[in-house]
C-alpha cells in the first residue's frame, strides 16, 4: 500500500464548558452555551423511567411520558400541538429504563416560549382519560406490529429468555401486553404525581443561549415547582444462565435473526472503558471481527455487530446478525467462533490502535449538534458521573492496552453460557440446529 497522506496538525477540540447549579427546589440545571448556533436543545430528565414503576404496572412510565404531550390543563391535545408546532417546536417525551426525558430543539429566539410550554406540560399536564385510552390502544397495536417484525421479535425473545422469571429487564421497558392492557389513567396520574418532581430532575440546555437570561427564565418557569419524587427501585439482574438455543418459529422467513449473548455490565462497572474498546473491536465498527468474518468474508449477512447496554443494573451483552436461512447453523458456529477468539487471541497492536483511535478521534463528530451535546450531559446527570467525564474520556480510552482488552474479554465474553436465540423458519432450520448441537434446543411459536 502506498503511504496515506500525512495529517495536518490537529485542531484542538475539547468538550464544551458547561455550568451546573441546583435551584432551591432541587432541580439541577446544566447550561452549555454554544456560540454561533441558531438552535438550542432542551432536555428535562426525571427519575420516571421504567425502573421507577411497580412491576404490575409495567409500561406506565412509557405511557405517562407519551401522555404528557397530549396537552395541559390550559391547552387540550390539539391546542398544545398547534401552539408548539407554530413555534417550529416538536415536543418529545419518552422514557427509558433509567429516566424519562421531555424536550425539544428550537431556534434560539423561541427558547423562552418553548421553556414555558415545557414547564406547563410537566407541571400541569392534562392527563386526559380519552387520550390515555388512545395511547394505550396504540401501544397494544404496536405490540402486535412487533410480533410481525422478525428483528423486534428476536430482540424481545432474547431478553425474555435471558433474564430470570420476574426480572423487569426480561421485558421491553414499554411494558408487556398483559400489564399494559390493565393500566388506567389513574395509574398515569399517580405515576406523574409521584415521579415527576424537581428534587431528582435535571434540566439541560445546550446551544444558542445566554446563561443569565436562560437562568432567569428557568427560575420563572420552574423555580416554584415543588415536590419530591419516589425514585427508582433497585433491579437485581438475575439470569436463567446456561448455554441453550431457543428458536422462535416464524414460518416463511428467508432470514434468521440471531441474538447471541448473556448478562453484560452496569453503568458503574470499573471495566466500562476496556469493555467499550473491546466491544468496538469485536463488533462495533465496520472493520470489527464479527463484521469482517460474517459479512466481508462469508457474505452471510448485511451486518454483524455486538454491544453492551449498561444501565443502573446490568443490561445484556448481545451480538446481532440477520443471516440467510440456508446458512443459519454455519453463521452461529462462526459467530461463536469469534467470541471464543476474542477470549483467546489477543488483538494485534494495529487492530487495537484502530478502534482506540476511532473512539478518541470521533469525539468532535459526536458533539456536532446541540442535541448531541445535550445528550452527552445526560449520563452525567442520570448516573452522577464526574463533571470531567468527557474531559478525561479520551485519556481513559487511550489507556486501554492489549492486556486490558484481553482481560476484559475473558471476563465479559462467555460463549459457554450464551443464550442463542433466533427467529426463523423452524421447518427449514430446526434439523440443522439439532445436528449442530450448540446446546439444548427449544422451539417455540411466535407469540
Amino acid at each position, binding site marked *: 500500500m502506498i503511504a496515506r497522506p500525512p495529517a495536518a496538525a490537529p485542531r484542538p477540540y475539547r468538550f464544551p464548558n458547561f455550568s451546573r447549579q441546583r435551584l432551591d427546589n432541587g432541580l439541577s440545571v446544566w447550561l452549555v452555551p454554544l456560540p454561533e448556533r441558531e438552535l438550542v436543545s432542551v432536555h428535562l430528565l426525571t427519575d420516571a423511567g421504567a425502573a421507577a414503576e411497580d412491576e404490575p404496572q409495567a409500561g406506565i412510565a412509557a405511557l405517562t411520558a407519551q401522555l404528557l404531550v397530549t396537552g395541559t390543563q390550559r391547552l387540550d391535545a390539539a391546542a398544545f400541538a398547534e401552539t408548539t408546532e407554530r413555534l417550529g417546536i416538536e415536543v418529545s417525551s419518552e422514557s427509558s429504563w433509567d429516566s424519562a426525558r421531555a424536550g425539544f430543539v428550537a431556534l434560539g429566539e423561541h427558547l423562552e416560549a418553548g421553556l414555558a410550554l415545557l414547564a406547563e406540560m410537566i407541571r400541569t399536564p392534562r392527563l386526559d382519560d380519552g387520550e390515555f385510552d388512545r395511547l394505550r390502544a396504540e401501544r397494544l*397495536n404496536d405490540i402486535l406490529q412487533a410480533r410481525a417484525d422478525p428483528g423486534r421479535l428476536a430482540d424481545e425473545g432474547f431478553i425474555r429468555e435471558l433474564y430470570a422469571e420476574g426480572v423487569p429487564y426480561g421485558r421491553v421497558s414499554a411494558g408487556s401486553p398483559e400489564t399494559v392492557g390493565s393500566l388506567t389513567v389513574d395509574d398515569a396520574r399517580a405515576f406523574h404525581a409521584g415521579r415527576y418532581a424537581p428534587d431528582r430532575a435535571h434540566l439541560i440546555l445546550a446551544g444558542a443561549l445566554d446563561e443569565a437570561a436562560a437562568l432567569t427564565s428557568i427560575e420563572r418557569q420552574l423555580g416554584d415547582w415543588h415536590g419530591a419524587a419516589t425514585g427508582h427501585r433497585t433491579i437485581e439482574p438475575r439470569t436463567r444462565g446456561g448455554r441453550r438455543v431457543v428458536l422462535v418459529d416464524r414460518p*416463511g422467513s428467508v432470514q434468521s435473526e440471531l441474538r447471541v449473548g448473556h448478562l453484560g455490565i452496569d453503568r458503574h462497572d470499573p471495566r466500562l472503558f476496556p469493555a467499550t474498546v473491546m466491544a468496538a473491536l469485536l463488533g462495533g465498527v465496520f472493520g470489527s471481527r464479527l463484521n469482517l468474518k460474517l459479512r466481508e468474508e462469508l457474505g452471510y449477512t448485511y451486518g454483524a455487530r455486538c454491544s453492551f447496554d449498561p444501565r443502573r443494573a446490568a443490561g445484556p451483552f448481545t451480538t446481532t446478525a440477520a443471516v440467510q436461512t440456508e446458512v443459519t447453523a454455519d453463521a452461529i458456529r462462526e459467530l461463536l467462533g469469534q467470541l471464543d477468539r476474542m477470549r483467546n487471541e489477543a488483538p494485534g497492536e494495529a487492530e487495537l490502535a484502530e478502534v482506540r483511535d476511532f473512539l478518541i478521534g470521533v469525539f468532535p463528530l459526536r458533539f456536532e449538534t446541540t442535541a448531541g451535546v445535550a445528550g452527552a450531559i445526560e449520563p452525567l446527570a442520570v448516573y452522577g458521573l464526574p463533571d470531567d467525564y468527557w474531559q478525561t474520556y479520551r485519556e481513559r480510552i487511550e489507556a486501554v492496552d492489549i492486556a486490558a482488552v484481553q482481560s476484559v474479554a475473558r471476563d465479559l465474553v462467555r460463549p459457554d453460557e450464551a443464550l442463542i436465540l433466533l427467529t426463523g423458519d423452524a421447518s427449514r432450520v430446526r434439523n440443522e440446529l439439532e445436528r449442530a448441537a450448540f446446546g439444548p434446543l427449544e422451539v417455540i411459536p411466535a407469540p
Partner: protein
Amino acid sequence: MLDVPIERHALGNGLRVILSRDPTAPIVAVNLWYDVGSKHEKPGKTGFAHLFEHMMFQGTATVDKGQHFSLIQAAGGTLNATTWLDRTNYFDTLPAHELELALWLEADRMANLLPAMTQEKLDNQRDVVKNERRWSVDNQPYGSWDERMQALVYPEGHPYHHSTIGSMEDLSAASLDDVGEFFATYYAPNNAVLTIAGGFEADDALCMVERHFGAIPRNAALPAPPDMTVEPILGEQLRETVPDQVPLPRIYLSHRIPVFGTDEFDALDVAADVLGAGRASRLYASLVREQQLAQDASVFAFPIVGGASMFALWVTARQGVTAERLESALRSEIDRLASEGPSEEDLERVRNLRSAQGAGMLERIAERADRLSMYACLFDEPERIQGEVARYRAVDAGRVRDALQASIHDRNRLTLTYVPAEAAP
C-alpha cells in the same frame, strides 16, 4: 437563516468542486455525488448501481479491501455511501486535519478500482446485497411497498419502474464485465461533484483536490441521460391488494407529480407537511387522534428529478378498523385540503417547523455537504441551498390548492393495500 458560503471550482478533467468553509468547525466533510443511480441500469441489470457502490469499498490497486473504512475510522471519521434512483453518494466526515486522507481515498477509488477487482469480491458483495434485500424487503412486514409502488406508478420500461435494490435474479446475473463497464462509463470525474464542507483553508483544499483528482481521465463518451419522459398523470385509478405477514392493514397511496425543483413540487412539499408533519397535522389530528382509525400517518414527496416524481401517503389501521373505512377517511382529509386549501395557521405551522429543520440541517456539516452536492449534481446550481427554506416559505394557500387539484385525485392515484394473509405461506 445563515448564509452558506459557497465557492465553485472545476478541474480540467471536468470534476466539479464545491467548497463551503466554516472556519470554526473542528471537522470536515468530503462528499461525492456521482450522476448515476438505478435509473441508469439496463434491462436485466436491476440493482447493479447499488451493488457497484458496495464494490467501491472492496479495495483498489493501492488500498486493500477494508482499508478505506479502517483508515477513515482510525482517523476518527465516519463514512458510508448510498444509492438511489437518480444518484450514488459517498461521504466521509472526519477531524479537520485529516481532510487529505479522505480526498486521497476517494480519488484513489475513482482512479484505481478495477485492477484489484476479483470474482471473489463480487461474489461476496453479491451475497451481502442479497442479504440486504432479504433484511429490508423480503423478510420485512410491508417491505415490498416501494418496489410495488414504483412498478405501478411508472410504466414498464421507464427508468423508475424498478427498485434500487433490484431483483434477486438480476443480482445473480451481475458479472465482472458489468463492473468494468459500469466503472468506465459512470465513475469519471466529469460525471461527479465533489463537495468539501467544514474547517479547511480553500487554497490548501484546492491544491489537495488537484493533486489527487487532477490526473484522473475524463470519460469523453458519457452516455446521454436516460429518457425519463412519462405522462404527467396516471390517467386512471390503480388498485392492488397485497396479502402479507402483517397484523394490521396498511394503505399506501401514490401519485405522479411534477419533479423536485419545480414550483409545483415545492407546493406539494408544503401540502405533504400540512397533511403529515407533526401532531397538529391534518392526518394525525383526524385519523390518529380524533377518529382513532390509524396507528400512524406519513406523507412524503420524493425529491427525484426524472419525468415525474411521486407524492406518497401511508397510514396503518388500528386493530379492528377495516382498510375500506380507513381509506375513505384518508381520502376525505386529502379531498378537503385539495378543495379548501390550507389555512394560514396550517402554513405558519409548517413554515416554522421547516425553518427549524433547515437550521438543524445546516448545523450538520455532512448534511450541508450532501445538499450542496445534490443541488450541484441535479441542477448544476449549488446556490439553491440558500433559498430552500425561503422557497418553501413562499408557498401560499392558492399554490397548495392548485397543486393538489392538479395531481392528487382519483385519475392519478395508486392505492396499495396490505392486508393480513389468512395463513402464513
